[in-house]
């Protein structure tokens, strides 16, 4: 396993591609989820860039963190599978299976992140029935945004530990 070998180069490319894909999924997924939860009443880009809405950026950061953590947790089983099953010889079929596994794992990460966010917000909504959180955030209520972000961080921390287990079980990684 010399790091200058072909295996090292290919592994680095796969690893970087996974990190890049995770980043893209985290950011785009987070923006999409905010739009979904706020029933398209919030334009994230406009709120952050034009209105300098700190609340929206806080919530976006927590969403990116939650989905990003889920994606990172899937990278280790993917790389483990790469070294053990594919790095020392592969066929077209095995590579296709590996690629589908990667796509599936990242999709699982995105869905898990969305589930974490959904659960966090549901918990808050049950506790504070008379408050419309998204409206408050839209009007610049940073305190509400801070509470949502903190809830997502905590629920996310509990969830991230089981993601690699799910990925290993589902895709045989």
């Amino acid at each position, binding site marked *: *396993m010399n*790091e200058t070998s072909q295996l*090292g180069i290919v592994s*680095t490319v796969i690893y970087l591609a996974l990190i890049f894909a995770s980043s893209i999924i985290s950011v785009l997924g987070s923006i999409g989820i905010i739009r979904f939860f706020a029933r398209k009443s919030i334009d994230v880009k406009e709120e952050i860039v034009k209105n300098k809405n700190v609340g929206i950026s806080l919530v976006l950061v927590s969403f990116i963190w939650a989905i990003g953590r889920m994606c990172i947790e899937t990278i*280790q089983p993917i*790389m*483990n599978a790469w070294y053990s099953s594919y790095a020392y*010889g592969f066929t077209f079929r095995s590579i296709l299976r590996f690629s589908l596994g990667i796509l599936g794992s990242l999709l699982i990460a995105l869905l898990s992140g969305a589930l974490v966010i959904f659960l966090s917000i549901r918990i808050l909504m049950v506790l504070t029935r008379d408050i419309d959180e998204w409206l408050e955030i839209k009007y610049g209520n940073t305190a509400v945004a801070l509470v949502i972000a903190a809830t997502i961080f905590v629920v996310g921390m509990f969830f991230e530990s089981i993601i690699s287990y799910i990925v290993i079980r589902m895709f045989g990684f």
Partner: protein
Amino acid sequence: MATRTQKVNRAIVLLTAAVTMPLLMPRRALTPRFISPSLLVGGPSAAAARQAPQNKGGGVSAEKERLFLRKFTWQSISKAWRETEFHLSEKDIKKETRSFGVPHGEKSSFFIKKMGYLEIAPNLYIINYRQIYQRNREYFPALSSALLLSSALPPGEEPLFAFLLFVQQIQYKRPPKYYEGRFIDCFFTPLICLYEQYGDCDSKSLLLAEFLTTLPGAREKVAMIVASRFSTTHSILAVDRKPLPGMTTLYNPGKGYFIPLETSAPGWSPGFISRNVAELIRKGKIFFIDLN
């Protein structure tokens, strides 16, 4: 003249000292205590009596000295099934059995240390992996060559992964506390692990260390990593390699980078370990034991 508060404080300090000092003092003239690194959470029960050898492949061939044949069938990197045969000398097995383990009731510190234990505090012992590793080196050159031959590796390919796969596929089972009448603390030395065809985390890790370092021209640096926290104790092997992307790494100042090798079960590539063990390493809750 001390005030009342000072007197009360002094009394509290004396009382605390009186309670804690006996706990901190070494307990001499008591039964030796052994710290076992072979406990794996979720592993088989500790209540193990001496167990009969299982799954012995082949029989005994007799010429000048009796040899035990041990057959292993395992899946290589290319997913092809391989069969490896080891011929273990009865003389070596007997010698190794006698060299490790303490007879019941033995309290002599000198004897216990001679029989493969390390005294880390008065009357407190752990398994001396380095001593066992060094002693077992004499048996392994031929065994390592046999394993390399059966691995059928392409020319120039290093045997690390193949050897790891072989050891991972040896049955994971916790050795008994007593073996041949000696207290072995649920640990099989490498030769006995091969003879019995099973072992637990530290037994299999040390076996892999022997295979990796006794090949002709091998210059591997290996270390045992004993990760421990509360009731979770687990052993893995570490080998000096520069890590590839995604791998867990240990850095030992002066010795360089090591990657962990998980021998307990198949499915772990070099450099990949479970989340819990990685967490313990990250927190520094490990013992790094250099073997060579």
